């Protein structure tokens, strides 16, 4: 193995060698720099490879032939090797990125760059604190030099402020070092660590100075004005190295030095870390310049890692996995984003729309964002999962809540940024793509996905990258070039074959959900055949969602459940974002879903009491005192997905603005994920008491109220898709109500709703989407009289509303019949009043939907409309057939599910013999009702048609208009404000209280960010004063640690 010191002397040597070259030989100088950096990163990689096999033995490197107290020693362990590899590779990549700048500035800049990389490697390796000081000063000098690479004069000011701050730090560091030496007699970290408790008794101040100097090097939140100016004005390639490599090195230094201070100092580190994480993320909300936002984000991430370092006492052996995971994710993600910002000309976030028609770069951007937030399958996800569980084990709930809140803020501004890129109205011109810059970015993407694979291998839960559904979704990335129709065939084939493969493993409950997700999804995807072109980004997102859903229903333990939950959220987010005006709604969707997911994460952590591997079955054996909280957290998390009242505001916008074939996917299938979660929760946790209130009763009330308010709000909508979206909220409220009844028939009703709602809601969304595609508008009052032009859509909507309203012959009535039997045996009756009111109200908006679109007066511009495209009509007709079959023989789907529910609620199930279904209170045979009603209807219809066979077919204005002539079709079609009297009577119940509440929450965060970021006045001296103030404040606050111990 090559000696680790080679890294130091190789880079230093080439730096000086460059001095000898002539100034004009710039290409040669650049070549030599690249060569040396390549060799150095090769050495680091061989070390990583070597140490990976036998991680135990880390190598001590003696210098000057003497042992430590008298000479500097360096250590090369697996962690050091990984950090070195990261630093050198980032350096190499940035140098490639900086090709033209370096060639312009000549060999001196290359030399400074090499020194910069060498200093960073030095910090990682050295075990001597004075040596650490020297390398830090080298980093300072190199940074001050390299800041001027960017041709932005403001970097001059930033550089000077940086130098001032580093002067103060070096003073603190030097005084700290000398006093520590004075007491311990040695400069070596290991020796000092040996006598750390003696050190702390005698001179805690000395260690404090040393510690706080290194902490300030990490640019902690209140004292990092100078750092943000560097990030904003420096060359992005340099910022990449600074944020990734230098950040890693400083974190390493702090980790080493903390060994001296011992465990009593860890809370201080955690405190500072969490403060930085939340403060920086909060300020990032109000940022408009991209690089300054990246600066805040990197400060926040480094704060998070500092907090993790602060928790290493309880993290035990998975400390390196967590800290490493988050660190590497931050480094690669941040470096990638900085390099991407190198391609964009302007500095506003909106200028990034230049990436819009560069799918590969867009994919890079998404990977970096997912890497930073820690979405599956990236390392951050595994790290965050383990971290939260171990913290929960050590009962540090407050810390978890703070970390999750910070992570939510981070998702907020990163996804808003992504939404801006895709949906901002004026598009900047296409970003230029010089080859060397693009190569660097793609290498970062490859690194990101290989890290994902690596961390999958390392994690104990099984590698997410091995999950076949996810791989199938990723398979569609290279296939983006194919036309949409071929990809559609592939997707449908994949879904159906996966269902056939999984079919034997499903138990009845999973079978119901599986049948809706996989073949059901394939059926809806049939409607996607109507688009031409390539539909970039649709199929990976859709199949990522389907992968999440299919993994969710077979999840054994909480990790796979949570991973599936987050992947379906991500997939559905990208689907929603495809709509034309859907950016704000997609944003609120992702925030609510990820917020809910974090609540579930906290719930699982509490339930598992610290052990990351937690099978779902053991939810039943959760400790008594913590069980109700776990129930609440998990239920809240799942209810964000079924849009129960209070967390429903994302649904109307998301479903209404999505594309024609995406709305049914969301409304028909995605909402069921939440329901499945609630099923699992109630199966395992059953009834929970909290302060004497039975939580299932609370769920009953929530279900009933969402049913009522969902229906009420749906009545007053003018937009057809919004009407259907609110109706979905109501139907989910019904299903939740059925579930919370906690008796056999209640669950059966909920399952029937799952199947029913999927069929008729997808059908209604498809037909309304088809009509909207033809008429060009979703506003109902603009349409009218389309029955003659679009008969098939009309039939689909007619059957749909009969099914939804629960009118006898169709399956809706089956749901109501079971509902009635369920509430007969339920003992808690008060919420039933609201459900009874919600029932008939559904009838109002259903009629409004069919009347304003299909009946009434036909407008002039719609006279020549064709029927909806064939591929949108086909699924609807299949659904009509399904509804008929399901109405005639509900037993087909529900028979063995009924038996399955028996083992939860043994008594008063239904028994199904032949065509009649009997419960304890009565029996009902759908076929006989259908026949009787059918016969009566047919005879009367035939007789009327026969009698009126010579009736005169008249047109739209042949109406008795009080002996006058109707003016125009628009003025005679009654559709606007259709239920005005009802609004006068019950309008007060639809005040947007919830929307206002969430708006104030978001608003307050933004204004506080806007207000407090004034802290950074831009004046170098104020920054220095803030720095000193921070040092004093930490000193005072941590005095408890001094004298408490």
């Amino acid at each position, binding site marked *: 193995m090559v000696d680790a010191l080679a890294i130091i002397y190789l880079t230093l040597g080439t730096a000086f060698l460059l001095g000898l070259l002539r100034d004009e030989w710039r290409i040669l100088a650049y070549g030599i720099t690249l060569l040396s950096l390549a060799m150095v990163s090769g050495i680091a990689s061989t070390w990583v490879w070597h140490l990976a096999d036998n991680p135990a033995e880390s190598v001590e490197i003696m210098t000057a032939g003497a042992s430590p107290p008298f000479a500097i020693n360096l250590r090369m362990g697996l962690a050091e090797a990984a950090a070195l590899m990261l630093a050198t590779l980032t350096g190499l990549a940035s140098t490639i990125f900086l090709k033209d700048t370096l060639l312009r500035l000549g060999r001196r800049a290359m030399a400074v760059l090499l020194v910069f990389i060498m200093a960073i490697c030095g910090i990682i390796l050295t075990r001597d604190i004075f040596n650490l000081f020297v390398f830090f000063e080298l980093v300072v000098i190199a940074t001050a030099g390299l800041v001027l690479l960017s041709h932005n004069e403001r970097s001059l000011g930033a550089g000077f402020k940086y130098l001032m701050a580093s002067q103060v730090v070096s003073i603190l560091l030097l005084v700290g070092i000398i006093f520590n030496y004075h007491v311990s007699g040695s400069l070596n970290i290991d020796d000092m660590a040996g006598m750390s408790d003696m050190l702390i008794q005698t001179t805690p101040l000395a260690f404090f100075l040393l510690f706080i100097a290194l902490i300030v090097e990490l640019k902690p939140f209140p004292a990092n004005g100078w750092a943000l100016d560097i990030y904003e004005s420096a060359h992005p390639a340099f910022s990449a190295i600074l944020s990734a490599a230098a950040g890693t090195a400083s974190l390493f230094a702090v980790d080493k030095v903390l060994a001296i201070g011992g465990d009593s100092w860890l809370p201080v580190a955690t405190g500072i870390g969490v403060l930085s994480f939340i403060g920086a993320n909060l300020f990032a909300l109000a940022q408009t310049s991209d690089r300054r936002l990246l600066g805040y984000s990197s400060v926040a991430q480094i704060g998070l890692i500092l907090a993790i370092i602060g928790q290493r006492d309880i993290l035990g052996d998975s400390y390196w996995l967590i800290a490493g995971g988050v660190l590497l994710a931050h480094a690669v993600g941040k470096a990638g984003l900085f390099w991407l910002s190198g391609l964009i000309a302007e500095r506003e976030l909106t200028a990034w729309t230049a990436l819009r028609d560069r799918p590969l770069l867009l994919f890079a951007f998404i990977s970096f964002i997912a890497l930073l937030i820690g979405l599956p399958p990236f390392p951050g996800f595994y790290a965050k999962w383990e971290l939260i569980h171990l913290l929960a084990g050590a009962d540090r709930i407050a810390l978890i809540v703070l970390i999750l809140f910070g992570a939510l803020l981070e998702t907020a501004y990163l996804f808003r940024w992504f939404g801006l890129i895709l949906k901002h109205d004026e598009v900047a011109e296409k970003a230029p793509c010089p080859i060397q810059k693009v190569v660097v970015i793609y290498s970062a993407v490859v690194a990101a996905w290989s890290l994902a694979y690596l961390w999958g291998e390392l994690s104990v839960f099984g590698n997410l990258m091995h999950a076949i559904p996810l791989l199938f979704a990723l398979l569609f990335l290279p296939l983006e070039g194919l036309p949409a129709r071929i990809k559609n065939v592939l997707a449908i084939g994949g879904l159906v074959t996966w269902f056939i493969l999984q079919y034997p493993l499903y138990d009845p409950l999973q079978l119901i959900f599986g049948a809706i997700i996989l073949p059901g999804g394939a059926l809806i995807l049939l409607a996607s055949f109507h688009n031409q072109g390539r539909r970039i980004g649709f199929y990976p997102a859709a199949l990522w969602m389907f992968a999440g859903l299919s993994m969710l229903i077979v999840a054994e333990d909480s990790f796979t459940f949570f991973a599936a939950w987050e992947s379906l959220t991500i997939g559905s987010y990208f689907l929603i974002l495809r709509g034309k005006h859907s950016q704000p709604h997609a944003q609120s969707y992702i925030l609510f879903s990820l917020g809910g997911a974090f609540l579930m994460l906290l719930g699982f952590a509490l339930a598992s009491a610290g052990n990351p591997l937690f099978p779902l079955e053991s939810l039943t054996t959760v400790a008594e005192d913590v069980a109700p909280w776990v129930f609440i957290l998990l239920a809240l998390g799942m209810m964000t997905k079924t849009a129960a009242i209070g967390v429903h505001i994302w649904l109307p916008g998301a479903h209404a603005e999505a594309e024609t074939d995406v709305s049914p996917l969301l409304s028909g299938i995605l909402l069921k994920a939440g329901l499945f979660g609630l099923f699992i929760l109630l199966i395992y946790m059953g009834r929970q008491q909290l302060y004497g209130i039975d939580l299932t009763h609370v769920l009953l009330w929530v279900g009933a109220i969402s049913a009522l308010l969902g229906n009420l709000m749906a009545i007053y909508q003018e937009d057809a898709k919004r009407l259907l979206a609110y109706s979905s909220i109501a139907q989910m409220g019904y299903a939740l109500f059925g579930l919370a009844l906690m008796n056999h028939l209640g669950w059966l009703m909920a399952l029937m709703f799952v199947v029913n709602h999927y069929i008729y809601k997808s059908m209604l969304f498809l037909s309304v989407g088809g009509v909207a595609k033809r008429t060009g508008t979703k506003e109902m009052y603009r349409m009218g009289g389309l029955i003659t032009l679009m008969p098939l859509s009309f039939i689909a909507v007619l059957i749909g509303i009969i099914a939804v309203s629960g009118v006898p012959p169709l399956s809706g009535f089956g749901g109501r019949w079971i509902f009635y039997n369920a509430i007969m045996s339920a003992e808690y009756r008060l919420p039933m009043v609201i459900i009874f009111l919600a029932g008939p109200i559904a009838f109002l908006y259903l009629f409004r939907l069919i009347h304003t679109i299909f009946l009434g007066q036909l407008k002039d511009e719609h006279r020549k409309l064709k029927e909806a495209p064939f591929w949108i009509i086909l699924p609807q007709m299949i659904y009509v057939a399904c509804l008929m079959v399901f109405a005639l023989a509900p037993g087909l789907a529900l028979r063995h599910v009924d038996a399955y529910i028996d083992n939860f609620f043994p008594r008063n199930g239904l028994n199904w013999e032949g065509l009649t279904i009997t419960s304890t209170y009565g029996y009902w045979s759908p076929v006989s009702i259908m026949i009787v009603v059918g016969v009566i209807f047919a005879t009367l219809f035939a007789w009327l048609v026969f009698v*009126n066979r010579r009736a*005169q077919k008249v047109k739209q204005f042949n*109406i008795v208009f009080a002996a006058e002539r109707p003016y125009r079709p628009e003025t005679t079609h009654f559709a606007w404000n259709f239920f005005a009297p009802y609004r006068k009577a019950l309008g007060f119940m639809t005040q947007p209280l919830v929307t206002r509440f969430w708006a104030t929450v978001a608003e307050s965060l933004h204004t506080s960010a806007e207000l407090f970021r004034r802290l950074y006045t831009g004046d170098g001296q104020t920054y220095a004063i803030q720095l000193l103030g921070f040092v004093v404040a930490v000193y005072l606050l941590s005095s408890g640690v001094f004298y408490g111990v």
Partner: protein
Amino acid sequence: MGFEWIKIPYSLLTLFIVVNYGLLLNALIAKIAARVGRRHGIPIWQNYVDMIKNYGLRTSITHGVMFYMGPVFRLSGGVGLLLFVPTIYGSVMFSNLSFAGDLILALYFVFFGTLGMALGAGESGHPYAAIGVSRGLAQVTAAELPFALAVFAVALQYETLSVTEIVAAQQGSYLNWTLFTNPFAVAAAMLSFLGSMMRPPFDVVLAPQEIPIGPPTEYHSSYLALMQTNRAIFPIAKMVVYMNLFFGGAVSWPIFFVKIFLIYMVSVLVGVVFPRFHVEHSVRWFLIWAVPLGVIAVAIV
């Protein structure tokens, strides 16, 4: 529930009796209302004549296939409601096609007719029809809540969803009618009964002066004939449900006729006295007066 073919002629017989009784009853009620206004009133057989005349009209127009659905849905809703609920307790002949779960079917079959009428009125393209439907739906949904609560209370009280069993439980003296065992439920049901009978306090839907007779504006000749037969059957069918649930059902046809007449008179007497409500007044009226009664009925059962 084996399907005996003999049930079909029996139920047709019940249907025939109820249609004739309905036509005569409506004429009688109209005569009584006239006598209140010191008018001689229409002859008893007038409804027959009107029906024959409307059926006999030579021309008719049609606005489209859904236009037929209006009267057909309406009448099959009325006939269905009648046939799925037993009319005479105890007699096999007149228990029609009732089965054990028919209480819920009765509750939801009311909407079958309303949905069809709404669709037919919508197809006619007339704005007044649409305004009438929107008023009708708003009012019926508000009226439906107390009735649903009352039915639920009764179902809970007798622990069954079959109308025949409920009637059986109320036999014996009139004291064990639901009227006396659970008066709140009956009160709530009767208030909602007013709402669904399109009588003056709640007849803004068919208000002849404001919007010429609301939804059926465009209907005439044979369509109107169908609707008139429904206007005969549907109130009777609805009152059969009320009678069976709350007033002990009918053991024989005379009792059936008297009880139906008395129930009908409730809405007539209220109708003759009160002026017409706006839709929002009636919605609020139901939610303030009728629903609390229903809630109490469910609570105390």
